């Protein structure tokens, strides 16, 4: 009973703050609503008993990416400025397309009956996740780990090069 109430509460928070994120005219407020969405998503992971994923969600998404977005908002726009939106006709057409897509997907999902695995609650420890992250055996994920690390390195160097001020020849 308590779990269901918690689930509906978290779900309602996610949906309400998602709508506010994409409709708010003030950019900084939209970023804060995005932060609330990401924190509520971490709540969903906690409900599924996946504590490590919830911690990653809170630190990387809510702690890292949102702060990066807020920094860039402060660098590029004035606080009193309102965000420009599409025209009414464009908004109506986008809402129509979105509603059609959502209806189609929801009908497909709700018609299919997923049979959940009747296993007990898995007691995953961070040790299990870490061991399988660096192992190269059958259930190991060392290759995606390395690929992600090279991708992050390349992205960070690329970001620095792109954002660097260009020196003019005359000076």
């Amino acid at each position: 009973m308590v779990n269901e109430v918690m689930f509906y509460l978290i779900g309602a928070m996610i949906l309400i703050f998602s709508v506010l994120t994409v409709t708010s005219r003030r950019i900084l407020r939209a970023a804060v609503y995005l932060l609330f969405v990401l924190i509520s998503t971490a709540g969903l992971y906690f409900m599924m008993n996946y504590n490590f994923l919830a911690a990653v969600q809170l630190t990387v998404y809510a702690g890292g990416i949102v702060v990066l977005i807020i920094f860039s908002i402060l660098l590029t726009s004035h606080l009193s400025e309102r965000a420009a939106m599409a025209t009414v006709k464009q908004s109506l057409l986008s809402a129509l397309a979105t509603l059609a897509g959502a209806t189609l997907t929801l009908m497909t999902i709700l018609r299919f009956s997923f049979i959940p695995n009747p296993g007990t609650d898995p007691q995953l420890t961070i040790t299990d996740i870490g061991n399988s992250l660096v192992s190269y055996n059958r259930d190991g994920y060392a290759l995606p780990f390395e690929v992600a690390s090279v991708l992050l390195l390349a992205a960070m160097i690329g970001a620095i090069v792109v954002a660097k001020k260009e020196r003019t020849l005359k000076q």
Partner: protein
Amino acid sequence: MIQNIPLSYFLVISTLMFFIGIYGFLTRRNLITMLMSIELILNSVNINFVAFNRYLYPQHLEGHFFMLIVIAVAAAEAAVAIAIIINIYRNFKSIDVENVDEMKY
């Protein structure tokens, strides 16, 4: 903790979040808010991965690692996108997509 909640409830939440993100991507005209819509879309995909892992294959770890990789890609994408946005702001003094209409400056 999720005995009475069917899998499809999680899927419904993530579907709605995905399409809200698409709506934002279509209607926003500011580059940073479009980036925020993309973050919403990626986050809804993460919910799907984790929920499928929890309900259908609780003894495996595929969903975990897909989610971690998606988060890494999202962080890399946000960093590069923000660098590009700041560069655009330096050249055009605006980050609205309507004003950025030439590649060379």
